[in-house]
Structures are given as C-alpha cells and as structure tokens.
C-alpha cells in the first residue's frame, strides 16, 4: 500500500495568549506543532502499513520551517516526507491548498490518502474532500474506525450526528479522521535518530507542475476583506461588590426574569 498522510503545521493553541489591549493573537514564542487531528491520521497510516506492508509518506504545504513537523512525523515511523514550499503558495485558501496538495499527490501515486478532519487554526474541514475531488477519487469523512483494508477496497465507520455509518468504497480513497480512531504513538528513540538524518524533499510549484494561476493568493477564489473584534453587547450589566453582593444581584436578576 502506498499511503500518503497530509499534515499541517499549526501554532499550539493551548499555548496561545491573547493581547488584552488589542484582543489579538500573540504568536511570539508560541511553539508550532503538528495539527492534533493529523497525528491521528499519521497513526492510522502507520497501522495500515503494519498490516498490509508498504510505505507511509507525509506531505505538507507550508513555509520552510514546516520541515520540523515532517521530521516529527518521521520520528513516529513515517518513511518519506515531502514539503511543498514556494512563495507562489502563500495566501492559499482551501481551494488553492487542495489544488496544490492534489498536484503533489498525483505525482506520488497513492492507494490511501489520510488527513485529519480539520486543522485547529482554520477549522474548515474542507481541504480533505476538495483534494479527493481534484484527484477524482472517493472520500470518506470523519472515520472513527477502519474495519477492513483489502487490496482494492476499504470498509470504515463514519461518525455522524446521531451515530455512525458503515461505509465501503474502492481504492484509491481519501479518508479524513477523527480522534476517536486511535491513540497516536510517541516517537521512539530510534525514530528520533532517523528523523534527524532523514531527507525532507522540498518541492516548488514547478516541481509538481502546478499552474500558478491556481496556487496561492492568485488561485484562491475567496479573499479576506477585513478582520474585526466581535462587538461588545450593549446591554451588559457588570455585577459589582463583594462576592456575596454579586451573587445576590445575580439571583435577583434571574428571579426578575422568572428564570429561577
């Protein structure tokens, strides 16, 4: 099996602090990590490889420093790593990102492509299904269990609102995974050594034959018009005083509104 796992390097949001004056994100000193759901994707790839044999390639698009995320994936047991890095990719929205990733995947050939359901910085969950469409292959979202991998088909459980579906499809396929699927392994010491020395392939737009009209900001149908802080509610009441007084005031308000 040729398995490709797509990963994204993201700021560790559990470490992110907000500037109280501007209400904006402070990135200074915030460590970068592999998107948490992508860790489950890597684990899924490694488990399939252990059963069926084959290779696991991790693929990422990002600035040169995203290389560290790929080394982390190799330390867990991935065989190869490819980083798509080019100024032409900067400012990509989900459409352009998916186009770029799928161009690289076409070059690599894959039986199974695995992505985390969504990234913690954008939360869109769009890149996985869009990549599948560009590759013209089926995809299954929110995989919570892989029941069976055969030579030309796969059977999985897809998490839905009120339970799950058992879904079967033909290979090649793209899966997006949720955290219920598995527990990502820790890197081994040997893995860490391998990762240090491993070669990370760096591909540019021309390396993957990507049309620059479809990459980066130029290839992105959506644009960010502006960003703004959410407005404060105008009818807010701050309950002042000692704790006792604050609680009394709250109870009074709730009773007045007949909520208590």
């Amino acid at each position, binding site marked *: 099996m040729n398995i490709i796992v797509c990963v994204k390097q993201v700021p560790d949001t559990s470490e992110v602090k*907000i500037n109280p004056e501007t209400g904006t994100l402070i990135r*200074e000193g915030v460590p970068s990590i592999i998107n948490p759901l992508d860790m489950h994707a890597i684990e899924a790839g490694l488990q399939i490889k252990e059963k069926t044999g084959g290779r696991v390639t991790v693929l990422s698009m990002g600035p040169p420093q995203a290389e560290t995320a790929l080394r982390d994936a190799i330390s867990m047991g991935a065989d190869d790593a490819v980083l798509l890095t080019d100024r032409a990719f900067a400012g990509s929205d989900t459409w352009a990102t998916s186009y770029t990733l799928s161009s690289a995947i076409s070059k690599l050939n894959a039986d199974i492509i695995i992505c985390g359901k969504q990234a913690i910085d954008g939360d869109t969950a769009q890149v996985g299904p869009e990549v599948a469409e560009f590759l013209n292959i089926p995809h299954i979202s929110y995989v919570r269990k892989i029941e069976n991998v055969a030579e030309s088909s796969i059977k999985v459980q897809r998490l839905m*609102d009120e339970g799950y579906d058992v879904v079967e499809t033909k290979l090649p396929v793209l899966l997006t995974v949720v955290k219920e699927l598995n527990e990502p392994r820790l890197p081994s010491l040997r893995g860490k050594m391998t990762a240090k020395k491993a070669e990370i392939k760096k591909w540019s737009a021309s390396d993957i034959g990507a049309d620059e009209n479809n990459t980066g900001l130029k290839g992105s149908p959506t644009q*960010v018009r502006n*960003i703004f802080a959410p407005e404060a509610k105008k009818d807010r009441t701050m309950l002042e005083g000692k704790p006792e007084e604050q609680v009394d005031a709250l109870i009074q308000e709730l009773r007045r509104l007949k909520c208590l």
Partner: protein
Amino acid sequence: MPVIVNIDKCNGCEECLASCPFDAIVIKEGKAFINEYCEVCMACISVCPEGAIIEVEKEKPKGADVGGYEGVWVFAEQRGGEVASVAYELLGVGRKLADELDTELSSVLFGASDTEAQELIRWGADKVYLSNAQIFERFNDEPYSELLSSLIREHKPEIVVAGATPIGRSFIPRVAAKLRTGLTADCTSLEIEKETGNLLQIRPAFGGNIMATILCPNSRPQMATVRPRVMKRGQYDEGRTGEIIDVKADGISSRTRVLDTIKEASEISFNLQEAEIIVSGGRGLGDPKGFKLLQELAQLLDCAVGASRAAVDAGWIPYRHQVGQTGKTVCPKIYIACGISGAVQHLVGMQSSDIIVAINKNAEAPIFNVATYGIVGDLYEIVPLLIKKIKEVKGMGN
C-alpha cells in the same frame, strides 16, 4: 507576498506592529518586514502614516465570470426522509438575501418526498429542485456532489448555502472544487454588500478573538456553510405556494456504498442542545474537580453541563460536552460560563443564548463582551455561594 513594504518610504516608526492581528510584521534593521504569517487582511495598510505598506495588485484569475448568475439556493438535507431543521433556518437567512437582491429563493432536496418539498416552500422557498431517486436516500458524497454541481452548472445561482453538518461539511467542498469557486465554512452571519451585491461571509478567523469577513468576488456561485442553531427560522406560511421541479438523476453513480446506519443515542449531547440552562466550565476551573462543582449547580438547576475546548483538551471532561466551533452550537435561555475566557471559537457556539452569565477572574476576558451579566471574581468563591443561595430560594435549606 501580496502585501509588501516599500522600504524607501518606511521609516521604522512601528505604527503597523500593533495593527497586525497575526503578528506578521517585524522590524528588521529599522524597516518593517512582513513575514509568512501574513494572512493578507490589509489591516496594516491604512495604519501606515508613510503610505509605505501597499497591496500588490492581484490579477483577476483567468476565466473569471460572475455575470449571468442569479438566485439564492439553500441545500436542504434530509436524514431518514425527514428534512433537518437547519434547512429551515437557512431558508430564513436565504429569504432575506434573496429579497435584498430582488431574486428568487430556491431549495434543493435529495432523497425526500413531495410533502417535505412543500414544507420548504412554506418556510420561504419559491422553488424546490427535488430528486427522490433511491441513490439519495442515504447520504453518499459522490452522488450528492455530482447532482448538486450539475444543477448549479445548469441554473447558475449566485449564492449557495448549506448546513455545516456532517453531511454538508463533507460533500459541499467537493462541489466547490468541481465548480472552481470559493467556499466559506461555518459562517455566523451572511449579508449582501450594497455597492457590489457580493455576499459578505462572516466567520471566526484563525485563532484569537477576531472575526473575518470573507468575499468571493471573482467566481460564482458564492458558497457558504452555516452551523445549525446559528440562524433564526423565517416566517412559516401555511398557504404559501411555489414550484416543485422534479430532477432526473440518470447516470449518477457511486464508488462508495453505505452498508449500514447505526444510531447511537447520545443523551448528553441531546441534552446539551435542548437544554434551557447550561452551566459551562473552561480552563479557569484549573482542575477536573471543578466540574464536580458545576455538576452540583447543574443538578440544582436541572440543567446540562458544557465545556470549552480548553477544558476538553485538558481531559477534564469528554468531548461531547464541548460547546463552540468544533463542538456543539447551543442556544439556551441561560448560559452560565465559569472560568471561560471566551475565545471567539467558543463564543460562536453560544452567543445567541438569551442570557449569558460570565464568571471570570480576569476583567478583560472577552467573555464579558457577550455577557448579559458579568461577575469579576473567583469562581470557586462565586459558584458555591450561588449554590447556597439557590438552595435558599428554592427552600431547600442546607
């Protein structure tokens, strides 16, 4: 980079630094430098007193053609033949958008009956494109995306909106990819820009306490998903009439098969979304034991317990309690946020609650921006007092 600094003009005044929400500007050798964290939000451009920060003209993508597209569409999803309630909410906002654009509101319904289509008309649709072909009974990405994209190609709507549900979030991206158009996930507000008629799609931005307005100016349709319970339903009109158009699904096939659908009743998540009162805890609890205290308050109020992502990620409470962009969207009568700072990803999941009570040590916490009643204080002092007083009010003594 599409936003650049003209270093001849830049005098290193650092005015731009604070304007950047992504911390993407650094001063190097007395000049501003925009690094790879730039999200091209343009916030710095107007701030620069020297006019040194400029946007590099973006070429219009080839083949861009926004003319000839008209009408607003709502994709109405069904489960087990029954239309999901998010569809009626989308018809509410869809009706407003269509009226503003002076155009028709249509709905697309796969795998349901005429009766359900009639219901969509009563909730505001002028037309319903209906296919009751068997292939659509159970959700399957390929046939869903194939038929929806071919309908869009044929009828050219300018706006297409779908629910940000497991179904919508899975197959709508395929439709956007096929049509080479933009898609904005989890919008919390949709408006029409007066001058251009473009759809303003508002959603939480990456990290931090900020929102972004997203546009899709050069391709059509403009596509967006909206989570359940974010929009309000429109007017229901028993006597409203409209047109139902039968859609053929010939030649639509799928490589994927749904073998079985298993229901798992999750009482807790049901309770969370239906609850009239929710007591919710965040990182400020500091400890999993904090939820024991909240549980006690919840039992007293006969209500549900929610949590922020920080508390769930810390392993203090299971994911099914999570409220926010990656958890559940809730809309109770009272939402009591204890030790939740109020990252925008949390706020979008609860800010339409009728009354929001915020208890937090930090007076600057963004949660107070959406609060109806704010208490600055230690929750471990406030909540036990609250429990005691509610018991008194309810005549339960101690």
